């Protein structure tokens, strides 16, 4: 018999229905994986075995679409009375007095929360190296980064230390680590999933989404967490389809757009080859492939680093030592307390982004930066509107390179920022986008491809991805630990 920990949630559900797997056995296996491998991978910042066991032993809780399925939360999602830190010293020991809406929804469907995943501090990064807890390792090569910022979530799914995970994606933070760790990661349409309880990085870009072992699980998990929430004005009041119904094995007539601006210098040759081969496979299955143009792509990274840091500088202003979590000692007065708390509490990348954002919003610079960036953002959105008149989905690489070495880009923020060059446009345009495994480099590192669709058309993404999975085995490969 297969090991339960290695199975996708939809497979475990089948086994549970047949009586061939029990929630307690699944949980025990998952925790034995965590205990065995997490000291090496460091995907978890909190593994809450006792609480998880209590949930599994409480039959009234084990009801619903995710009954008995272990789920890992990124450490920026609030779980009531459980330490939630965004991997930042400034939130050391912070226990939210409330549950994020996604947490409530998961628990209503019987999911078993097993802990908190490591991440870049406040989701500022593409490598998990800016975490105050130290970096998570890529299960495929522990000298490499798992991607970020949801690196802990992706690494844990990849290493079979959890069945499902939630991440958050502001500029690629779900998709890039999913690609680098060889798993599936979906950023839903902006407004599809409530952000209530997600500690904000950039409010107009952030979105919570699934990181899973395959597409079917992503559809299952999205069906549970999606939906309008009266606590989040930016969530959209549209009915939530059962996304698992969109998993057809058929791409006949599906119009796939391939943007020429994404296959440029700087893109790793093996990744280019892998993604192109994937597109060819879909074409051979009946999809129609079009070359398209997204002419404002080159401005996306610059635009993103203005909008995202501007919002972040304001969102992070509340961490001042007054009400909760970390407060520096030995302060002379109020201003001194602010300065010391924030100087000691934030890491370098957080400080860099707060300074950038503050600068962009300052009198005299606002028009040149923030306002201009908003205009470019509109242009980027219009590029996609135009493109989706010619195609149903767009396929691109997820990341320009496979997982890089730990430390490789830490002193080169610009090159680090370019890791998200392919994922950022979907956030700026508010579109759904998913990364799925589509190959391996010669050195054995996973390669991901990104599928984008129109706003609120996650179903088309699932259709393309699921079909691809039926004809390939990349998503079934496991790292040797």
């Amino acid at each position: 018999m297969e090991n339960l920990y290695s199975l996708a949630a939809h497979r475990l559900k089948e086994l549970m229905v047949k009586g061939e797997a029990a929630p307690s056995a699944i949980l025990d296996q998952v925790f034995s994986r965590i205990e065995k491998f997490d000291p090496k991978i460091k995907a978890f910042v909190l593994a809450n075995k006792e609480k998880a066991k209590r949930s599994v032993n409480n039959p009234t809780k084990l009801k619903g679409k995710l009954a008995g399925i272990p789920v890992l939360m990124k450490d920026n999602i609030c779980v009531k009375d459980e330490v939630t830190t965004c991997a930042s010293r400034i939130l050391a020991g912070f226990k939210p007095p409330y549950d994020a809406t996604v947490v409530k929804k998961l628990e209503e469907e019987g999911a078993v929360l097993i802990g908190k995943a490591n991440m870049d501090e406040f989701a500022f990064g593409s490598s998990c190296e800016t975490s105050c807890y130290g970096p998570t390792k890529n299960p495929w090569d522990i000298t490499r980064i798992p991607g970020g910022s949801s690196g802990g979530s992706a690494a844990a799914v990849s290493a079979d230390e959890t069945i499902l995970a939630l991440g958050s994606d502001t500029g690629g933070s779900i998709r890039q680590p999913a690609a680098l760790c060889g798993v599936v990661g979906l950023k839903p349409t902006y407004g599809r999933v409530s952000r209530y309880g997600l500690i904000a990085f950039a409010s107009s870009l952030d979105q919570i989404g699934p990181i899973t072992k395959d597409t079917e699980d992503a559809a299952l998990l999205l069906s549970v967490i999606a939906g309008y929430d009266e606590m989040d004005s930016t969530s959209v009041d549209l009915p939530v389809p059962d996304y698992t119904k969109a998993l057809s094995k058929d791409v006949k007539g599906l119009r796939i757009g391939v943007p020429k601006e994404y296959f440029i210098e700087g893109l790793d040759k093996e990744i280019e080859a892998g993604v192109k081969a994937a597109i060819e496979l879909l074409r051979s299955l009946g999809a129609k492939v079009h070359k398209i143009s997204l002419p404002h792509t080159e401005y996306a990274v610059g635009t993103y680093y203005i909008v995202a840091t501007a919002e972040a500088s304001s969102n992070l202003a509340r961490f001042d030592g007054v009400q909760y979590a970390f407060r520096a000692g030995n302060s002379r007065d109020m201003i001194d307390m602010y300065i010391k708390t924030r100087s000691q509490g934030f890491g370098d990348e957080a400080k860099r982004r707060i300074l950038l954002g503050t600068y962009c919003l300052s009198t005299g610079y606002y028009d040149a930066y923030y306002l201009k960036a908003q205009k470019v953002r509109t242009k980027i959105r219009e590029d996609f509107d135009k493109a989706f008149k010619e195609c149903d989905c767009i396929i691109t690489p997820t990341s320009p390179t496979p997982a890089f070495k730990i430390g490789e880009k830490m002193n080169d923020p610009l090159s680090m920022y370019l890791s998200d060059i392919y994922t950022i446009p979907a956030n700026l345009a508010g579109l759904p986008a998913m990364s799925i495994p589509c190959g391996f480099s010669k050195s054995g590192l996973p390669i991901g491809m990104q599928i984008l669709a129109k706003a609120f058309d996650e179903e088309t993404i699932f259709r393309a991805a699921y079909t691809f999975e039926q004809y390939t085995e990349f998503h079934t490969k496991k790292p040797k630990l």
Partner: protein
Amino acid sequence: MSVKYETVIGLEVHLQLATNTKAFCGCSTKFGSRPNSQVCPVCLGFPGSLPVLNEEAFRFAIKTALALNCRIQELIKFDRKNYYYPDLPKNFQISQYDMPLSYNGFVDIAAADGRRKRIKIKRVHMEEDAGKLIHPKGENYSLVDYNRGGMPLLEIVTEPDMNSPQEAYDYLTKLKSILEYLKVSDCDMEKGSLRCDANISIRPEGEKKLGTKVELKNMNSFKGVKAGLEYEVKRQVSVLEDKGKLIQETRLWDAEKGVTASMRTKEEAEDYRYFPEPDLVPFVVDKNEIEKIRETLPELPEAKAGRFQKEFGLSDYDAGVLTSQIDLADYFEECTKLYPDAKAAANWLMGDIMAAVNARNININELGLAPAALVGLLKMVDSGSISGTMAKEVLAEAIETRSNPEDIVKKNGLAQISDKGSIEEIVKNVLQKETKSVNDYKGGKKTALGFLVGQVMKASKGKANPVMVNEILKKSLGE
């Protein structure tokens, strides 16, 4: 020759809206509760929490804007005003910057020369209130109470259209009157539900360019606003007369010392880094919704005053006074339903009753004298059962002891003797006793009548109807 200066004043009023819950969360807005007992993750700005606009607060805001004759913005958008202070839990305030929810309105006041003067309203916008810092005496720490944090505020900003502290005072009085009519706020300056800052500058008469502006804060009453502005006018004039230069600054009014003092200069002003609030989606206001709100507008002071003049024959002045406060106007109208002589009711209200209300610094409804009770008193005067002078005394006692005037009259046996027979009896007795005065009178000394009236009044213990006493005396003396 000394230069004459013109004063230019603009006012900013912050108004707490009397909604049941806060601007962006469901917490109660009750005043005076235990510190930090009306808070939640949203108004405490906890990480991960998000604001959701309170529809009632929005409707109150639109209602106010309409009553102030403002235009309503088509797209409603909120912005963040970023600054650090411990009473501001997110270290930014949700406000409205470049697109206030309404703009271009006006309020008319009666100017010094009696003419109507129009004060233009530049903008009315919504924002959230901050908490309150408490500094315990003699301690080296401060406390924060977040109960007020996140309460809905309206900021009402005028153009610099007022030319004297008195006009500023009149504008505030009129504005408060309108707001009370709308019942959108309790407008209580002591509780902080209405706060006022002023911008004031002076310029030589005839000069077109505005002078250097001073922002004046910390006035705790309308009288304080007036006094602070009066002080500023004098100070600014004397600086210019001494060939000095005014600087753009914020000054605080010290009511105790009666002076203003500099708080910060323009150079120290903060950069608030306004930008659109990404957690609240901009929305278009439905025109029908606005019309529905417009239909809920009550009759406003000016319309009511016009109606009072027409319906009750009041003078412009009397109608203005009676409609200056909604409670007073309602009280008056209640009286007119029970009593036909509206002018008499108006005179009593504007005289002794308003004096009592003002002396106690209360609202007319807190006086403990129902309109029916006042009307009862007026009817006793009309029927002659008490005199006008007596009525004043009874009214004073009724207010003092919070009792019904009719009960006071009954209890103290104050009802006037207006019965002809009883008075004739007393007169007969007095005339028998006071033969000397009777003879004096008959001998042509007419002043003796006064003495005799006095004796009758004395014998009746002051209760005899003096008009009747006069008549009966004269008749008995053979006139």
